């Protein structure tokens, strides 16, 4: 069920009709970015592999995660698996954590090693993704770093996806926002005026990429979670060349270097996941000193823009599941959480209500989770019989359960996601809770509500009609 590396997954996508090859040579701009946008526009769009990019040696693949079909195949499920079933399967596998990674002495990512005259363009076919990006960005990296205070603590090692702007043949900028785990590592290093070593893995097993963009607790291992989501099959890791950092053995490319302490230089703008460009800011820089890669490496990168695009599949169910688990721990009444909208800036909670005000209180719990605190801005709470992944049902709950004067709550002066263009100053926001649950005691229910239930034998008729329909 699990894939050992990106190449094995691309082979599966091709067998399932979910990968197309562009054999003719293309110019880097605007074609690769445009194809990434176009593939995401198609329903169940495919991954796109560019075999020849003008002026470059290697291939590029984009939109690898960019459809629910590809997402299901990543999970080892049939490509037509409904989203809600993928959510429940992720929940089931989540509980297998931790599945300790297997540490091996070498792997395909070590086939070629470069330590002199580093030139990223020799290895990676870099390109501008969106027109007004400040340069060429690496948008799908798994960045590995360790806590300088606990350098031997494997669980505090972080694997995260952060945007990277190429600023030279061996120099890149990286965005480490204050609430990102890597920013904790960086702060400790900068307090001592020491560089922070990083290893940047590109083109890895799709589950590792998925976990690198999943909000888990600080001392949980993304790799050991990946083993769980691989159905209990551990990931294989090798040591980086220059530091005590673990990288996927099957990675296409690993860039190694260090964040230069206490330096910030101009970075951006960049077309970001909320569908608008980020501002130009002073951000960190990394000097790359070592590259290892497979023979003929494939550069995997993603398009991001107005949702939905490939990045949304990498922050949909993997945002929903951890928030669900964290809420469920405190409130077993919670049935499901759909936090698929713009990395959980919007979220829907389905819950039973044990007493009056319960729905609103559950929403506040979500706002106090590590991810919900900075990200989530708009929360809708619905009754337990409403499927939060069915937006028609959610809208029905709002239109028939919500009394705005008491059920819409605004909480001012809270943390906010700075890339949300309505956050001002960037990083601050007002939270909104829409409680669309039915009032329970001691909250007065001003009018009785009797749900219209399905007539008897509806389920039988549904089955019969489906058979008649497919037989015609």
């Amino acid at each position: 069920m699990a894939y050992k590396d990106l190449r094995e997954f691309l082979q599966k996508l091709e067998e399932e009709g979910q990968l197309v090859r562009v054999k003719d040579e293309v110019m880097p701009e605007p074609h690769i970015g445009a194809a990434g946008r176009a593939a995401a526009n198609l329903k169940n769009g495919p991954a796109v592999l560019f075999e020849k990019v003008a002026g470059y040696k290697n291939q590029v693949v984009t939109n690898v995660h960019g459809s629910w079909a590809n997402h299901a195949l990543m999970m080892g499920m049939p490509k037509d698996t409904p989203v809600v079933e993928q959510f429940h399967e992720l929940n089931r596998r989540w509980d297998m954590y931790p599945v300790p990674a297997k540490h091996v002495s070498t792997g395909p990512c070590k086939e070629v090693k470069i330590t002199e005259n580093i030139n990223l363009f020799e290895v990676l076919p870099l390109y501008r993704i969106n027109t007004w990006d400040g340069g060429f960005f690496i948008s799908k990296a798994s960045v590995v770093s360790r806590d300088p205070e606990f350098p031997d603590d494997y669980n505090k090692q972080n694997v995260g996806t952060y945007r990277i702007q190429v600023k030279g043949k061996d120099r890149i900028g990286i965005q480490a926002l204050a609430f990102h785990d890597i920013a904790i590592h960086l702060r400790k290093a900068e307090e001592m005026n020491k560089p922070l070593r990083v290893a940047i893995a590109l083109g890895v097993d799709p589950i590792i990429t998925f976990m690198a963009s999943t909000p888990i607790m600080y001392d949980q291992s993304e790799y050991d979670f990946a083993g769980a989501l691989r159905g209990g099959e551990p990931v294989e890791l090798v040591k980086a060349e220059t530091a005590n950092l673990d990288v996927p053995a099957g990675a296409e490319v690993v860039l190694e270097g260090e964040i230069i302490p206490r330096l910030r230089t101009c970075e951006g703008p960049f077309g970001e996941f909320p569908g608008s460009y980020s501002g130009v800011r002073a951000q960190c820089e990394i000097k790359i000193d070592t590259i290892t890669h497979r023979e003929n490496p494939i550069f995997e990168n993603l398009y991001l823009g107005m949702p939905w695009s490939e990045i949304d599949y990498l922050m949909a169910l993997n945002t929903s599941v951890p928030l669900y688990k964290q809420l469920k721990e405190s409130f077993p009444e919670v049935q499901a959480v759909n936090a698929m909208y713009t990395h959980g800036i919007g979220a829907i909670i389905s819950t039973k209500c044990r007493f009056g005000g319960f729905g609103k209180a559950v929403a506040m719990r979500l706002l106090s989770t590590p991810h919900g605190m900075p990200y989530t801005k708009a929360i809708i709470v619905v009754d337990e019989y409403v499927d939060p992944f069915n937006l028609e049902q959610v809208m029905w709950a709002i239109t028939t359960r919500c009394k705005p004067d008491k059920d819409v709550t605004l909480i001012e002066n809270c943390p906010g996601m700075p890339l949300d263009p309505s956050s001002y100053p960037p990083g601050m926001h007002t939270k909104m809770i829409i409680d669309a649950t039915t009032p329970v005691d001691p909250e007065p229910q001003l009018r009785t509500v009797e749900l219209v239930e399905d007539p008897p034998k509806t389920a039988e008729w549904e089955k019969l009609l489906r058979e008649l329909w497919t037989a015609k």
Partner: protein
Amino acid sequence: MICPRCDSKEVEVMVESPVGNVWTVYICNDCYFSWRNTEGEEITNPEKYSKKWKLNREILDNLQVIPPIPPLKEQA
């Protein structure tokens, strides 16, 4: 040559295409804008670069710093 985005003269060749003589990428060492000479004039030509995205010295000197640089800790 000047930077299409901030009009700085601190511009240099970042890299020539590794295969063939197909393109050149330039970098501005003031605002770190980079561009490929094969891109459209709206990207490569300072006069045609959109005013909405232009930068100047005042903007560059007042950028928000992310993440903030912490105070140095005294070494034990």
